Structure formats: C-alpha cells, structure tokens
C-alpha cells in the first residue's frame, strides 16, 4: 500500500472523505487484509485517545497563580489610564524638530550666499561719439560679448569677451 492510500485510509477513519471515496476505501478494506489491519489500528488509537486527555492541576496556589496575571493586568491598566499629554506639549513636540530644521536651512542659505562670488565686471565707458557698441550675453554659458566699433575707422572693430566670473577687459 502506498503512502497516499494510507493517508486516504486514515481520512476515511476520521470521516474526512466524500461518500464516493469512502465507498472505495470500504471496498479496499474488504479485499486487502493489510488495509483492514491498518484501518483497525488507526481506529483503536483514535478511540483510545478520545477524551483521554490527562487531567492536571496547576502546580501553584490560587493566590500565587493569580498574582502574576493581576500584576500584568494592573500594569496595563495604569498605562491606559495615564493622563494624556496636553495639547500645548503635543504641539511643542511636533514643532521642535520643524523649528530646528528651519534654523538649519537659514544657516545653509546664508553660507551659500556668502560663498558664491558676485560677478566682477569692469565698467566699460566711451565718451567718443563715433564709437558704436553691440552687446551679446549668453546666460547659460555665463558669457558676455561686447562689440566696439569706430564708425570713422571703418573696420577697426574690436571684440571684448568676458565670462561672468572674470574681470572684463576693454
């Protein structure tokens, strides 16, 4: 008999099979002496154990046994009945970390502002009325191109370039 059949036989003893399967098991028992013997053994053990749980007495006195239970219950009761924190304390607890965060952000902001160098440009000025200027500024590249042209000089043009972080020359 294979294990699957043995387990089915046990399920039959325990009344866990469908009617059709139960009939198959009954046929098996009728024809197979080994199956019949196994079913009888399983039934005997089941009958022996039924209601045979050993009665036992707690090995401690009533007061002592109860004291541990009571202590735990009272401890939980006292935690549950502890006064709830007032709303101000609650808000303070909530706002304290936020205030700290805000202060830290201020410090970082000031430090960053001081460390970023401000653009340093030389002043370009011309009093000559014949001078013509054109200026191109590339924001993304931080580059400024100033085109100076002497209208009287023809092709005497001069380009001056400067990036935003370096002094401009004329």
């Amino acid at each position, binding site marked *: 008999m294979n294990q699957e059949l043995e387990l089915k036989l046990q399920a039959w003893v325990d009344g866990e099979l469908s009617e059709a399967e139960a009939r198959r098991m009954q046929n098996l028992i009728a024809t197979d002496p080994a199956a019949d013997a196994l079913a009888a053994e399983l039934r005997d053990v089941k009958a022996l154990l039924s209601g045979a749980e050993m009665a036992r007495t707690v090995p401690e006195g009533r007061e002592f*046994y109860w004291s541990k239970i009571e202590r735990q219950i009272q401890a939980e009761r006292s935690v549950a009945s502890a006064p709830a924190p007032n709303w101000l304390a609650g808000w303070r607890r909530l706002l304290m970390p936020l205030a700290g965060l805000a202060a830290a952000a201020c410090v970082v902001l000031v430090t960053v502002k001081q460390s970023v160098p401000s653009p340093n440009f030389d002043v370009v000025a011309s009093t000559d009325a014949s001078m013509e200027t054109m200026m191109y500024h590339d924001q993304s590249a931080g580059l400024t191109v100033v085109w100076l042209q002497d209208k009287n000089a023809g092709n005497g043009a001069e380009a001056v370039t400067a990036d935003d972080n370096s002094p401009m020359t004329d």
Partner: protein
Amino acid sequence: MSAPDDQSERSDVELVQASQKGDLQSFEILVARHRDKIYARAYSMMRNEDEALDLSQDAWIKGWQRLAQFQGDSSFVTWMTRIVINLCLDQIRKHKRQRLDSIDALDETAGGVERLLPAVEINPTEGMERTELRRRIDGALAKLSEEHRTALVLHEFEELEYKEIARRMNCSIGTVMSRLFYARRRMAGLLAGLKRESAE
C-alpha cells in the same frame, strides 16, 4: 466544573459580563474555576511544566485584554482554550526555529520508520484502570515530537478537522494528515508494548 477553591455560585456568563465591565474580582473567579483545564491543555501540547504555567497565565492575560471580543458563541472555557492553544502554537514555532536538527522534518517527508511497521492490534484497556490508562497514554504522547503531538492533540482532544488544524498550524492539509498518521502509528506501537507488558 467548579474548582474546590471557588466559592462563587455565579455562572460563567454572569462572571464574564461583570468582567467585561472591568470587574477584576469576577475575572479572578473565572481564572480559579478554569485554570486547571487551561493549564492541562498547555501541558498536553508543551510537555513542560514551566512553559505550560507561563503560557496558561499569558492566556488569561490575553483573555482579559480581548474580553470585549467574546460574544458568547461558544462557552467561555472553549474560548479560553482556543487562546491558550494559539499561544502554545506560537511557542512551538519558536522552538522549531531554534532547533538545528531537522529529524522531525525528515520523518515527515519520509513517512517515518513507523510507516513501514506492520499494523498492530491494541487493546490495553483490558485489566487496566482508566486513570492508569490515561497515564500510559500521556506517557506515550510525551514521546512524540512537538509537531506530531500537536496535530494529535488538536484532532483528538480539541476535535478539529484537518482543514482547521492546517490553518492553526500554518501548514498544508497534506502535512497535517502525514503528521497525524505518523503520530498514530507511533502511539499504536507504544501502546501495543503496554499490552504485551500487561500480558506477561
């Protein structure tokens, strides 16, 4: 049902209702009345006096915490028994995690040595007192592994079906069937020895 040290004549239902309103004294009477049964079930599963004692006390604490959930669908002691069984199952899972040796698992997959033994005829009740028989059965149960004993206790003492045992033990129905089969065959072997002993 009443324990000898329980002088109260109030029913379980009355005591539970009072306990649900926060009356600890009523709850203490319930504990005194049923503590032996709850302890006995814990002992049947754990086979260790200290663990059974601790788990039974933990069950009463949990019972108090969950009293509001008790609707009276079953008797109070049945409800408490369920709580202690669940605590024992948790403890058995902890034991299993702690065990390095997996002989039990091996037995389970292979069907155990008992699977291969011929079926035996057992009738140890002949010439044996009921109390003595219970004691012998108890001794045989102690020789089973935790998993196999638990399956047997849940099936025979708690009268649960395979499906419910599988749910409680967090395993498949096939595993429950295999554990029960192994446990019964082992029990048969142990109790057959008793018959031979009494015949000599």
